[in-house]
């Protein structure tokens, strides 16, 4: 009767053990889910935000640094017995705000996770943090995350520096390398955007163990998986902060720009855009409210004029014309042309100048004639065709100075400017024929030409170098290696012989000593310059001046463009001379000029 029952017992015992082992094999070996769940239970990922790289000026003065900022984060799963009344009073928010915060959190849907830290209140102030630190244990599930925000030692240079703000959803989507996470900060414009990769550093990650109450229990696997945050690389800017601040002081209340370049290196000494704003407004807690104000300002302080404002260059373009014509052999320095004012008006008492004299007096008919010789060289019988060929040659020379296309400065949003090509005029004249008499106003920098102030500065820097330039740049050294980006080490030669530049330099010296640019004259140094007055009917003309100094072994090249300030001989020439003086001598010795410029009344 009881036969076989012993075997049933044996079978059942072995079977149960076997079932257990199979079940265990499933949950331990096959299913990875449990390991992940265990980690989310007990391993807390703490992100260590790196320090963003600092930015210093050429003399090592700090411009941009970091200050701590604290966010309140929440791990929803860990919230226990939240005393909302106490919470509201400690964090100084209303009950409605608290309710709204939780609603917003849940509304994030995809990004929402009850086990990950989520941003709850951003940018607690420093004082808040000190107060809150001791009370955090009353609110399990909430934690304070420290990060840094940008701060500036100066209220200048805003447009060149740019700003940093939280990464937007679109940017996150575009970030294919998955470098960024929601809530990360990213450079939005200026140097901050251009050198984002160098500045941002690398996030560190610490894995901490915690028990069921959320209390930390040391590092996970002795920190085997921890990564230290790597601070961003510091940048040494070529900017001379004193000169920059001085330039901004001079430009106060004016629209326009000042660009100073060290010719021998292409390093930008100052990049003034007027009007500007205080970069400190676009950091920290008040970013969004201030950004709205600044971006809707009718004076467009976010518009970075040195790179983005495309102007007609005016008479400063006569220097380029002169050298192009010399290179093509259509004139010599001694070519005299009668100042025939029937087609284009002129100014000043002169009648029959050679090239140097024409530049000194900024003679319009002279350069009208030069361009005619340049464009109509008789290479084709048909005058239309001849002009085409001439213009193409002219373009080649002009473009070699960096006009007509982006120079490639280390800032975003640079504009091309415009140097008209034959194709451009075809389009403009609807493919009807055109010839010199249709387009002659480009001879004196009016007409279709457009350049940005940076290109003007680069041009005068090229003249100062007698024929070559380095791409203008703002960062002269990156990180420990201390070198700029490789493209800034490369010389760009123009298509003009170096010898012809001597003619231009002579003429520019005479402009300052005896010509239209006498307001730019300085004692103890030979300044070479050229004025420009760009017509802007019916509004007052724009005042333009380019200059470099000293004549031999130049240290600084300047372009100044002041909108609606009348003659280049006044506002722009004075500002340029003050900038040169400030840079070369450390101070200015002509308070009356300074006062005049600051007063800003250039129109009589």
């Amino acid at each position: 009767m009881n036969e076989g029952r012993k075997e049933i017992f044996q079978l059942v015992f072995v079977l149960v053990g076997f079932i257990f082992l199979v079940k265990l094999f499933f949950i331990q070996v096959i299913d990875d889910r449990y390991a992940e769940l265990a980690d989310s239970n007990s391993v807390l990922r703490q992100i260590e935000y790196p320090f963003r790289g600092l930015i210093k000026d050429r003399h090592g003065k700090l411009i941009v640094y970091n200050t701590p900022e604290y966010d309140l984060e929440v791990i929803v799963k860990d919230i226990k017995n939240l005393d909302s009344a106490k919470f509201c009073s400690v964090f100084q928010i209303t009950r409605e705000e608290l309710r709204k915060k939780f609603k917003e959190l849940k509304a994030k849907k995809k990004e929402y996770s009850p086990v990950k830290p989520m941003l709850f209140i951003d940018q607690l102030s420093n004082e808040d943090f000190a107060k809150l630190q001791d009370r955090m244990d009353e609110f399990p599930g909430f934690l304070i995350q420290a990060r840094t925000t940008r701060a500036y030692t100066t209220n200048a240079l805003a447009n060149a520096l740019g700003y940093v703000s939280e990464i937007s959803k679109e940017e996150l989507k575009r970030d294919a390398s998955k470098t960024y996470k929601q809530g990360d900060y990213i450079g939005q414009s200026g140097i901050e955007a251009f050198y984002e990769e160098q500045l941002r550093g690398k996030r560190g990650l610490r894995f901490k163990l915690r028990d069921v109450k959320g209390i930390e229990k040391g590092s996970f696997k002795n920190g085997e998986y921890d990564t230290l945050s790597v601070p961003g690389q510091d940048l040494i800017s070529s900017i001379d902060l004193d000169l920059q601040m001085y330039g901004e002081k001079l430009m106060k209340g004016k629209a326009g720009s000042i660009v100073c370049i060290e010719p021998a290196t292409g390093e930008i000494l100052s990049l003034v855009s007027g009007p500007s704003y205080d970069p400190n407004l676009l950091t920290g807690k008040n970013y969004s409210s201030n950004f709205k104000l600044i971006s809707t300002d009718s004076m467009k302080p976010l518009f970075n004029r040195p790179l983005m404002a495309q102007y007609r260059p005016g008479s400063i373009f006569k220097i380029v014309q002169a050298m192009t014509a010399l290179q093509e052999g259509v004139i010599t320095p001694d070519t005299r042309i009668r100042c025939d004012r029937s087609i284009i008006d002129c100014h000043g008492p002169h009648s029959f100048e050679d090239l140097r004299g024409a530049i000194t007096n900024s003679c319009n008919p002279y350069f009208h004639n030069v361009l005619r010789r340049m464009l109509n060289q008789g290479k084709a019988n048909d005058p239309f065709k001849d002009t085409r060929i001439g213009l193409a040659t002219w373009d080649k020379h002009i473009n070699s100075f960096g006009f007509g296309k982006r120079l490639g400065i280390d800032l975003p949003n640079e504009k091309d400017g415009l140097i008209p090509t034959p194709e451009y005029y075809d389009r403009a004249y609807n493919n009807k024929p055109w010839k010199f008499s249709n387009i002659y106003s480009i001879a004196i920098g009016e007409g279709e030409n457009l350049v940005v102030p940076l290109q003007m500065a680069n041009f005068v820097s090229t003249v100062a170098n007698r024929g070559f330039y380095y791409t203008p740049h703002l960062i002269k050294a990156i990180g420990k290696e201390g070198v700029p980006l490789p493209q800034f080490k490369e010389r760009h030669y123009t298509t003009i012989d170096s010898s012809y530049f001597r003619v231009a330099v002579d003429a520019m010296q005479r402009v300052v000593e005896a010509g239209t640019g006498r307001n730019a004259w300085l004692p103890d140094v030979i300044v070479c310059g050229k004025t420009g007055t760009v017509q802007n009917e019916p509004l007052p003309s724009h005042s333009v001046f380019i200059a470099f100094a000293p004549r031999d072994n130049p240290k600084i090249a300047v372009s100044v463009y002041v909108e609606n300030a009348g003659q280049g001989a006044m506002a722009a020439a004075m500002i340029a001379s003050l900038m040169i003086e400030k840079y070369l001598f450390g101070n200015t010795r002509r308070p009356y000029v300074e006062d005049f410029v600051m007063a800003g009344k250039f129109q009589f």
Partner: protein
Amino acid sequence: MRKDYDISGSIDWTTVMIYLALVVLGWANVYASVYDGSANQSIFDLSLSSGRQLLFIVASLVIAMAITIVDMRFYETFAYVLYGILMFALLLVPIIGKEVGGNKSWIGIGSFGLQPSEFAKFVTALAVGKYIGSVGFRMDNLRNQLMLFVIIGVPMGLICLQRDFGTALVFASFILVFFREGMSPFLILTGLSAAAIFVLTLLVPNPIYLYIGIGVILIGLILYGRKKLKRIVALTAGALILVGVIKSVDYVVTHVLPRHHQQRLKALINPDSDPLGYGWNVTQSKIAIGSGGFIGKGFLNGTQTKFDFVPEQSTDFIFCTIGEEHGWIGSLVVISLFVGLLLRILFLAERQKNRFARAYGYGVACIFFFHFAVNIGMTVGLFPVIGIPLPFFSYGGSALWAFTILLFILLKLDAHRGQVLQRI
């Protein structure tokens, strides 16, 4: 008589070795489950469970020695007396006992407490053995059967009074002993199908589907077999009884069972429905074991158990520590040891020369089996959470001593099985 004092030659050392292995592994895992890396505590630290467990282990070795020294006839002779004393103690527990963790099952002696319910297991095994081994006992005698159920029913009832239903359920495992001693399998089969229907009732949200299923099976059976009226009536009656069982199960689950038992049952069916509430234990236990992987995280490197994610990690959920720190390989070792022990006990029981010893042996096997199956079953999510310890592993003096006594009385009886033959 002198031979009684020296049985080292005849005691079953295989069992003793497995026993020692389990006890030592248990001790190490109790330490691992409460270990706090930052506190730098020793396994011997008496403020830790592991330190105290070592004392319990030493005490249980002394108890084991004592058991082998006592005259083997003592256990059969005084089976009923011991049973009576323990039942009396169980009766006292609800009155003078102290409450620990919702269950009033402890009798305190100073700061030290004992759980009479643990010791009730071995005396019941002795009593059942003695009754089955008594002269004139016949398993097919209804009176005798009834008496057996009384013997296991009394401790069950008394322990239920302490609201310790898990331990009470252990005594149901004696039914397996009765089966081995000749009881019809009908009872076990009925019990199993009742359990199956019970689980089905819980699994299927609306009992209407079960009724439909029963109806379909009923019609199928009627159409398939001989269409005799008697058979049809019998089948229909059976179906109606099933419907009644389902209805009552539904009622019992929703109205009679205390809330935390309802929740444990629900957690078994679907632990994800409320992982932070009543599903917490099972969910966390599975997470701990599952995160161990194939070879585990290493001794003292578990995170889930020692950081209190798993509740009662040194007692009822001690298996989580093994699963987490030693992975599937560790689980394999422990489960193999247990299955080995169970098979060895069966072997010992089968080689006994009298019914008392054999029935007692099966009692030991069934109690161990029940603990082993239910405890590990609950930690891996195959069983509802029933709070009973894993023999030799779980922290606690009473359970360890009771299991030790249970096992070593069998070893003592086994060592003298030759004498029994002479005596008869």
